[in-house]
């Protein structure tokens, strides 16, 4: 037990309890209510691979200035069970969140249900932690007049209590509940409204002075969304019409979202027997001229590998969203890791041409989705958008996207390019890209195969043609790389945040964007001289742009949430450049701001 001081802007509200307690929904509602009140909000949820029991918690960090990540300190802890406070005996589920509290933090718990000795809370109180003992369960019973009410409803009382403490208008909470539960479930909404008010009133009358205040800011023109949501929104924007998906955490919300929007946007959503079927269905759709997308995680992607290689050889557009979790094998299903990068980059037998894009926040997930469908069709290759659970499921306050990325479908043609028996589907061209006809056009015959083939798609083992075709497929990637580095405003291969001439570069990718942005900004205010360099393309790797970004720095610090430094390996391989320092993490949890700042301070000291 120790009481740390706060150092980062905003407040951090944490709710914890067992799976099945509705932690996720409560966090979503509370985050939205804060957002709708004018705060920048970052919402992070951590859960276990189980439907009931265990320990789940959510951290909602909010401020009147932008926040992009979570912190380890907790300002308000809403504990729905004792485990949330003190942990379980061996720390299997959690070590308890009490150590995150500091002087002036507030702990909300239900003294009637808790088995923790009263003396424990007195001790906390002596350390300056403010305790709110609220009979959540009894309030539910009284309010709903049910002897055995739904345990989940305690959360809502807790939300009402938190609203009083944080000066949050209960109307905003009620709106958020209606938004989440829908107007249709009127009775449930009604019951929840009463519980919010009851929780609010209880704290107001029993603990009127226990408050934390921060003025709202302005978040006009913004939305509060997670990475999966924006990846699907971008897919729909790009004209994706067939979505195939076999459920696998943490990619599954993409499937649910596709189903949610399919009617409105005329999507066909397929959940077939396996990831093998998923990717091959999408390849069939791509062959037939439809923009098709699939979602999966590391294990499912492993199954897709052979078909990715087919798509490369047969030059068929397909887009894969690879949402990674902890590996090897099934690893830790609900935890985060940037450990699938090399699997994705090197997927496929031989030289499998493909593109790999690495969004760093939900806004980028949206734009990268559109880019992915464009690149897949323009260059007739598989494109993989790779991000992790942390980006997939964490909520960010981002600007409403206004796409300036035009839809580009490449060399689609209605006319025949051949006087032979088949269309020259694999015509040798300067940029490597061959015309693609519309299937079913009179007089046009499209032949595709995973075997080496000539310009007509006819199988061949001729050594000259083989050599030409390998070069042709490679030329497509060279052409793509040239386009990426020429149209930087769209493809954004490397992003630099901070002063260009900084002496230190912190290099990262994917979901660590948020925490690195805040950490470098925080340290620069303290007098350090750091820029953050974000790598957004792993294949083709934007070597020139990357070298421009880091050539003049004294030190490079690489930050990755994996064991083996997968991006660092790619950098070495692509640039022959050595990294000076590295920060890695592979315990399944994302980097917190505290953690990155203190590790950078040690390196730079």
């Amino acid at each position: 037990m120790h009481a740390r001081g706060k150092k980062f802007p905003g407040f951090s509200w944490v709710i914890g309890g067992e799976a099945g307690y509705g932690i996720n929904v409560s966090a979503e509602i509370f985050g939205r209510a804060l957002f709708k009140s004018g705060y920048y909000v970052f919402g992070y949820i951590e859960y276990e691979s189980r439907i009931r029991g265990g320990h789940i918690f959510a951290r909602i960090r909010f401020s009147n200035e932008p926040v992009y990540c979570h912190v380890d300190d907790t300002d308000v802890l809403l504990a729905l069970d004792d485990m949330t406070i003190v942990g379980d005996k061996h720390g299997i589920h959690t070590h308890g969140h009490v150590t995150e509290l500091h002087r002036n933090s507030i702990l909300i718990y239900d003294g009637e249900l808790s088995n923790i000795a009263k003396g424990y809370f007195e001790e906390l109180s002596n350390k300056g932690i403010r305790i709110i003992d609220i009979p959540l369960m009894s309030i539910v019973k009284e309010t709903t007049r049910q002897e055995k009410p739904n345990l989940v409803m305690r959360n809502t009382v807790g939300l009402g209590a938190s609203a009083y403490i944080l000066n949050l208008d209960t109307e905003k909470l009620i709106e958020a509940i209606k938004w989440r539960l829908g107007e249709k479930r009127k009775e449930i909404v009604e019951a929840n409204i009463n519980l919010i008010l009851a929780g609010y009133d209880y704290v107001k009358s029993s603990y009127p002075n226990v408050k934390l205040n921060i003025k709202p800011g302005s978040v006009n023109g913004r939305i509060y969304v997670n990475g999966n949501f924006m990846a699907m929104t971008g897919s729909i924007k790009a004209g994706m019409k067939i979505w195939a998906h076999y459920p696998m955490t943490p990619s599954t919300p993409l499937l649910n979202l596709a189903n949610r929007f399919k009617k409105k946007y005329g999507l066909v959503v397929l959940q077939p027997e396996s990831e093998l079927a998923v990717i091959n269905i999408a390849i069939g759709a791509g062959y037939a001229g439809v923009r098709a997308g699939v979602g999966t995680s590391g294990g499912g992607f492993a199954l897709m590998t052979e078909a990715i290689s087919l798509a490369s050889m047969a030059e068929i557009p397909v887009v894969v969203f690879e949402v990674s979790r902890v590996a090897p094998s099934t690893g830790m299903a609900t935890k985060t890791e940037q450990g699938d990068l090399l699997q994705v980059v090197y997927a496929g037998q031989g030289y499998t041409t493909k593109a790999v894009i690495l969004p760093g926040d939900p806004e980028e997930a949206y734009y990268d989705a559109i880019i992915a469908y464009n690149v897949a069709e323009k260059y007739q290759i598989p494109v993989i958008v790779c991000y992790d659970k942390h980006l997939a499921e964490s909520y960010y306050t981002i600007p409403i996207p206004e796409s300036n990325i035009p839809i580009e479908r490449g060399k689609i043609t209605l006319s025949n390019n051949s006087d032979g028996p088949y269309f020259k589907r694999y015509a040798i061209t300067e940029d490597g890209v061959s015309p693609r006809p519309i299937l079913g056009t009179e007089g046009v015959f499209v032949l595709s195969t995973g075997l080496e083939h000539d310009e007509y798609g006819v199988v061949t083992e001729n050594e000259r043609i083989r050599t030409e075709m390998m070069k042709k497929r490679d030329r497509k990637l060279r052409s793509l790389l040239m386009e990426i580095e020429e149209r930087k405003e769209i493809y954004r291969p490397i992003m630099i945040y901070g002063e260009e001439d900084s002496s230190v570069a912190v290099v990262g990718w994917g979901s660590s964007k948020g925490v690195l942005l805040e950490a470098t900004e925080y340290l620069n205010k303290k007098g350090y001289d750091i820029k953050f360099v974000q790598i957004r393309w792993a294949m083709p790797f934007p070597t020139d742009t990357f070298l421009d970004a880091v050539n003049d720095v004294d030190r490079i610090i690489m930050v990755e949430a994996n064991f083996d430094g997968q991006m660092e390996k790619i950098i070495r391989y692509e640039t022959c450049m050595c990294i000076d320092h590295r920060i890695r993490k592979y315990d399944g949890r994302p980097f917190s701001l505290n953690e990155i700042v203190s590790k950078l301070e040690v390196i730079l000291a």
Partner: protein
Amino acid sequence: MTVITKVSVSDYVSPIRPQWCPGCGNYVILNTLRQVLSELNIPPYRTVVLGGIGCGSRIPFYIRSNGFHTIHGRPIPIALGIKIARHDLNVIVVAGDGDTYGIGVAHFIHAARSNVGITVIVQNNSVFGLTRGQPSPTAPKGFREAYSESLDPISLALASGATFVARAWTGDPRKLKEIFTKAIEHSYVNKHGFSFVDVIQLCVIYNPTVNGEPFMKYYKDRVIYVDELSDYDVTSKSMAYKYLSEPHNNKIPMGVFYHDDTKPSLEEEFGLYEKTPLGLLEIDKEGIDISSIIETVL
């Protein structure tokens, strides 16, 4: 509307010569399929033929239509993707028993279940030819290195909910043609969904005889066509099961075992017939208006 002129067999002939062994049953399947497609007057550019991996699976190179020679076990899901994208096209998978009943058996089961409107023709010779003679899932126990009982694809197809289930053999091209015609009519012409034809054939190199008898003689003596029996009802699944479980006087039952024209196809289930095929939709340069999605999070 395109004016459909008469399609002839030669329209379906590709200039590429098959690399099959002389006497291979694949020639019968290829020629029969060309005949059927032309007699149904389906233009070759409206047809997509897919193969898996193996000698017979190279058929997309030998039929002049749209073709996709895929990877082992996966032609069925690729065909499904094509059919959902282009419900207006005639999509046919021709693949082997290893492709369909071995490595890709899950796709066979679930495509049948979904009733997607594709025709699946399986070249069933109980042996892996191209890899030089290993047993396939339909090989009897003891044939070469086979250590399991052989798989019955007809029962599997029935249990999986296929709406057209038939078996033929390459020694009787007349019946083969009749069954191919009915299968393609079921899936493409009449839009009733999934059709499946198991075609028994020999491998002249690795499986030329059955129980010591020449292939042709063995089957000629034993095959009966259930759909030609006066007391057989092709719309009764229980009758199909009965004939499969109690062979008629030790005969080998073939023909159309079962068809069901009442179930919606997958394309119908998704309401695709009323719409422009997805693969023909154009996308504006600005993309699709997503404001109604953004509204849900405003």
